[in-house]
């Protein structure tokens, strides 16, 4: 009887050990534990002007500025590499779906784009602080091509941002103009 119980106990122990090893452990840390190297390496100036009926408070404004600059760090990375995953924390579901529909492969950077300056005019701010529409004017972009050629442009964009999860995320955009200097 003792032998039977010992065997049974070892069988259960072996099963549990096997199960423990079989569990797939995700190596991806949750978003709030990850350091965003692209954002840390990025720096652009932003000036915000409020035209909306509802005004964000200082803290909300600070978060918006920080997230908007971070968003552009990822949009520039996306432009150069087609890496749609890196910036997914800054895209809404519909924006991500749109990117994913065109995705084929991540490429090594050819032409790159860097944003230097934004004048963000907040047109609408929802009273619950979850929606922001804005015109980003006088955006200064620098494009660098593989042959070392560098061009600068000024652009005006209309953007729709939604606050979802921990970030402001881009939901839609309209490029109103972009003029190369």
């Amino acid at each position: 009887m003792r032998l039977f119980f010992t065997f049974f106990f070892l069988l259960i122990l072996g099963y549990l050990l096997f199960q423990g090893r079989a569990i797939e452990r995700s190596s991806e840390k949750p978003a709030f534990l990850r350091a965003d190297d692209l954002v840390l390496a990025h720096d652009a100036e932003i000036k915000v002007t409020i035209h909306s009926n509802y005004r964000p408070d200082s803290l909300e404004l600070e978060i918006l500025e920080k997230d908007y600059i971070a968003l552009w760090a990822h949009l520039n990375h996306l432009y150069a590499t087609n890496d749609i995953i890196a910036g997914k924390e800054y895209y809404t579901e519909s924006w991500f779906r749109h990117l994913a529909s065109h995705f084929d492969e991540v490429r090594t950077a050819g032409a790159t784009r860097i944003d230097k300056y934004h004048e963000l005019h907040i047109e609408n701010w929802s009273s619950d602080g979850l929606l922001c529409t804005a015109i980003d004017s006088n955006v200064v972009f620098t494009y660098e091509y593989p042959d070392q050629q560098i061009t600068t442009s000024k652009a005006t964009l209309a953007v729709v941002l939604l606050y979802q999860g921990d970030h402001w995320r881009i939901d839609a955009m309209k490029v109103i103009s972009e003029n190369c200097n």
Partner: protein
Amino acid sequence: MNTFPDLLKLLPALYLMMILSSCSNDAAERPLPTSEITRLSIPLENISFQASGREWEAVLFTFIQPLSLEVIYTNSGFYVSQKDDLGVVEGPGRICLKSGNSHFYYEVLLDNRDVGVTTAKDYRSPKTVNVDSSLSHQRIAFILDEWSNVVDPGGSLHFFEEQEIILTSRVGVYRTKVKTPLSAYYIQPGSCTSVPLHYEFRPKANIYKVMAGPLQDQYGNMVGEGTMVAFVYDDGQYTNQMEVMSQNGYATIEVSSSGSTVYSLFAKVNETFSSTIQLQPW
């Protein structure tokens, strides 16, 4: 025999020839588009280029994302075409043609042939309105096309609309778009403004059945389900309290009758009190 020293003298010339030949292999000539390509409609129709060589890669840099293009060779060069038939974020873009280490860029302006399915977005805030606090609702509206472009409906660069809407005071779940549950907003009942009381004596069971209701807010909406109603009754010696939650605007308790004892009873919902009634079996 002085062949070897002669060969040594020729080495610099050979080296130069090797460099020149390697350069000529890498430097491709800029392909010439056979038609005007400053403005392109997406999905791209075949764009033809005159070029030599057969190792070309083509990428369309939209304002947001690079798209690989298909390269199909012809006798005089090649043409490029889009691999899918989807739209893009409209605006300036660049076609990049690459052969070896040579990159050639062509500035283009992209627009979609078809806006696809447009969606009128209608954001309301707050999502939940309590009639006691405000019936005012903020509405922000705009139109998006299928490819995440904000649509300019009047062509006057007026993309966004904002309105302040006064909502109905009738409680309910409303939708800005009937077929879209996510567009729902909620009007909640306010607090109770009066507590009517009724009772009846049931001689068989020897109990008083006391009912408070209809419990309504200032606009006549039934108060929220589960509103706590406290019934306080006194037989002259002891005071007792029973709490029940309202259902469909009514709350009911049963109080045992003991002979000829007369109870005084009132009910309250938060700080709204009913009148005091006497419970007696006759």
